[in-house]
């Protein structure tokens, strides 16, 4: 692990809650590490397992999924479906040789700009602590 | 040290920044049982600190009147830990030599801690003896109560000395104010 390791982190968020929270973090000028790359989806319920695996295989150091709090899903219960699916994917991610700690799911509501900032900061910290993924090295070779 | 520095030091303590939430409603000052004795209540103290009038704030007698009853904390609409801030101000004023000379509580606390250093425990009589040297009038006022206690075998002068008293006496002085870890 090197000190100047800057991980690349894919953040898959739902349009209604967490994307709005990210916007709010922006309008409130709440700075967080630049390692974050947000991809907007309509609902965490549409996140396919292959998105997550592809992210890791293409060299992402961490994947963060942010959805609405239970009960607040714009599509009734898409977030809960996502939760179920992601606990399953965790095992597959591990089988592929990635630390499952690199995959994190959190509920961040539309009004929670500071929580978004905090979650991003913490996740980047924890990925930095884990270091680069081994697959990345393989790819460069 | 100038007042700006003192303000920064205060803000860097564990709860220092909490006073920025104060809406100056006066609930703390009105809740305080000894508010009548204070030149200004905790509310005003926070206003002084926010204005940067640090010397006035640190020389204030207000924190030394605090009895730690937590009435203000129980009622503060902004959940400001007033009592912890009072402790912090007392320690800061001690560290910077700004303890108000007119107030008697520093002497009582000193008497209390001396008893702890020498015996590990305290007895009321012993604290009174230490304190009475500095404030004979207060001690005198208490004599009639002391006699009554003596009559009922409730007064013992020396607390039992404990083995750990030497350990307590050798404790290094800690930092007076704890910094905010974040």
């Amino acid at each position, binding site marked *: 692990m090197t000190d100047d390791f800057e991980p690349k982190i894919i953040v898959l968020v739902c349009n209604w809650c967490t994307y709005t929270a990210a916007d709010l973090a922006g309008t409130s000028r709440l700075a967080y590490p630049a390692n974050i790359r947000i991809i907007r989806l309509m609902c965490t319920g549409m996140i396919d397992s292959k998105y997550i695996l592809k992210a890791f295989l293409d060299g992402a150091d961490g994947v963060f999924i942010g959805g609405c709090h239970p009960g607040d899903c714009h599509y009734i219960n898409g977030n809960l479906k996502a939760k179920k699916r992601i606990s399953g994917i965790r095992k597959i991610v591990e089988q592929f040789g990635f630390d499952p700690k690199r995959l994190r799911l959190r509920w961040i509501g539309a009004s929670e700009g500071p929580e978004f900032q905090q979650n991003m900061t913490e996740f980047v910290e924890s990925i930095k602590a884990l270091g680069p993924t081994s697959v990345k090295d393989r790819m460069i070779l | 040290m100038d007042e700006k520095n003192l303000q920064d030091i205060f803000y860097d303590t564990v709860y220092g920044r909490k006073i920025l939430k104060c809406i100056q409603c006066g609930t703390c000052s009105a809740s305080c049982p000894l508010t009548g004795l204070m030149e200004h209540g905790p509310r005003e103290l926070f206003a002084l600190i926010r204005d940067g009038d640090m010397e006035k704030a640190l020389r204030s007698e207000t924190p030394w009147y605090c009895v730690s009853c937590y009435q203000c904390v129980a009622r503060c609409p902004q959940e400001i830990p007033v009592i912890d801030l009072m402790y912090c101000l007392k320690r800061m004023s001690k560290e910077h030599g700004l303890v108000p000379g007119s107030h008697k509580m520093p002497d009582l606390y000193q008497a209390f801690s001396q008893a702890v250093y020498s015996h590990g425990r305290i007895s009321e009589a012993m604290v009174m003896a230490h304190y009475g040297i500095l404030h004979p009038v207060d001690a005198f006022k208490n004599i009639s*109560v002391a006699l009554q206690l003596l009559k009922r075998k409730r007064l013992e002068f020396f607390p039992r000395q404990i083995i750990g008293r030497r350990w307590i006496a050798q404790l290094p002085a800690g930092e007076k104010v704890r910094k905010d870890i974040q």
Partner: protein
Amino acid sequence: MKYGFFPGCSYNSAAGYRQSVDAINRLMEIDLIEIPDWNCCGATAFFSLDEFKALALTARLFALAQASGFREIVTVCNACYTTLRKANQILSSNPETVSRINKELSKEGLLMEGNFTVRHYLEVLYNDVPAEKWSKNLTEKFKNYKVACYYGCQLTRPWGDLDHMEQPTILDRFIERLGFLPVDHSARTICCGASHTVSYADECGLLVSRIIREVHAKGGHMITTLCPLCQFNLDSWQKNLTHPIPVPFFTQLAGLALGLNPTELGLNKLLVPINKVLSREL
């Protein structure tokens, strides 16, 4: 039932507190094991002067309890109770301070680790001793004695987890269980002046008289407390009042309810005598 016990410095000189606690322990089969070589908790004085030392003093207590195999410490004093709990909370979130303190403690061969539970003796009597155990042994004769429960300020604060911060009822419920008549009043948690009574006697006298007047107005025959300092302040500052009200400890009332005689419970040590109230037919 066995507990680590921290008596606190005022326990011995408090009017019959030790006698009554011992008596209750005997009858209720409670084993309070005094923490060996315990020291003063530091009270408000040390927190006002040097926080590190204040934390070290309490940490030593925790370490001593730990060495004796206790993670739970019972106190009989509101000030000790709050000081220990406060310190425990600070220590448990400041590992760095703990390790510095442990370096000091190692000179005495002591070590403090983890969290400790600090409880007031009232909790033990109310929650741990089954209600039936009380009711089995009670006498009926106190059912018309109106008792005002005075909680003092620190028992329920600053967290309010034992009971409501301003309107606690746990002592009222206990007193009722003992067969007394708790009286509703508004002075439950207002301050008695604490240690400031020494230096600012006249002003604190007003605080005490406010409590006594309120209890008198609400018809209380006595005031019961659970803290040596509260008891002392309420007991000793009544000399100028026209209607002094005796201030027994809650443990002394428990002893009376169980049929023990007043002297056995140290009730003769109260400055405002209780005999008149006890001998009155109600």
